[in-house]
Structures are given as structure tokens and as C-alpha cells.
């Protein structure tokens, strides 16, 4: 799983079966110091509570679909947690 920031929302009314009521959010992937790294992408919000600007963590690939009530859905990224705190004292400061 990886850290990401929620930077936007995406609305789609015509989508694959099983995705009814599922919210799409646009996330900016982050590196281990929670600095932006890589291109934004779209994830479903399995927590249903993630808001703009929040630090979240995302599960990728087919397992992403397992975070939803209906798991036979074409989903490859899902927000599965909203981060309250990160405590990583052994993470080296600068490379």
C-alpha cells in the first residue's frame, strides 16, 4: 500500500455494473516523506469518508476491488484508510 493525498473528485454516472454508489477520488501519490512523486490517478474510496486534502493510503491492483461490498468490479486502486499519524523514527532523513 502507498500514501497519497486526495486532490480531487470524479463523477461518472455511466459505469461498470457493481460500481453504483461507489465514490471516485483523484489522488496524488506520495513518497516515504509524503512528498508528491508520480502522476495523479483515480481510486475508489472504500472508506467513503476521505475528503479533499486528506492523507490516505491506497491499495492497488486487483486486491483493490476486495475493499468494496461488491468485489467483482473492474477496480485497480482503492483508498482503504485515512491516516491520523505517521511515526517513522528510523526512516533516514535525506538520501
Amino acid at each position: 500500500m502507498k500514501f497519497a493525498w486526495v486532490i480531487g473528485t470524479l463523477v461518472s454516472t455511466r459505469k461498470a455494473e457493481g460500481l453504483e454508489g461507489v465514490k471516485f477520488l483523484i489522488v496524488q501519490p506520495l513518497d516515504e516523506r509524503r512528498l508528491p512523486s508520480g502522476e495523479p490517478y483515480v481510486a475508489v474510496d472504500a472508506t467513503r469518508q476521505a475528503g479533499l486534502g486528506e492523507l490516505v493510503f491506497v491499495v492497488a491492483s486487483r486486491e483493490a476491488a476486495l475493499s468494496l461490498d461488491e468485489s467483482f468490479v473492474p477496480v485497480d486502486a482503492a483508498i482503504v484508510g485515512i491516516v491520523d499519524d505517521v511515526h517513522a523514527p528510523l526512516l533516514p532523513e535525506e538520501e
Partner: protein
Amino acid sequence: MQLAQVVGTVVATQKSQRLDGLKMLILRPFGLDGKLGSGYLVALDSVGAGLGEVVLYCTGSSARQTEATKDRPADAVIMAIVDTVEVGGDVKYQKGKT
């Protein structure tokens, strides 16, 4: 999932039988700035996307998790047609407008 625009179609009469009956569309990455990125991919369509529409597609084995692509050799499927994209409060894309 990634944002893309449908820029073309692929027709192949000689192909794996497991792909029979599935529409193949050419996608180009659609940036949050509304500009098309470089590169392309051919994705199967599960929602009836049309030329020019901005869509969402997923890749990897998740792409087989639709009735249309189940147990098929599919690694990319269009699974949503985008109505609105909003980033940091600004509408970056609105179907039919931008």
C-alpha cells in the same frame, strides 16, 4: 484507474477467439490539465464508450472483473464514462462543455 480519451477503434477479424464480440478502443492519457498525454493503449470496452469521450480505465487482472471480460485475455478495460473532473475546487473537465 487512469483517465483517458477515446481516440480511435481497432478492428481485428483474426484474433483470439476469447476476444470475440468485444469492442477494442484506442485510448490516450487525459491529463488533469485537460491536455492529452503521450502514449496510447488498446482497451476493451465494457460501458459503451464512444469516440472522443473521456473515460476511466483499469489495468491488470482487475480488467477481467466484468461480465464482458471475465476469463478473457484482457488487461485493460474501460469501466466508466466521465461526467466531471474536479481538482482542488476547479472543474477541469465537464462532459459536453470542455
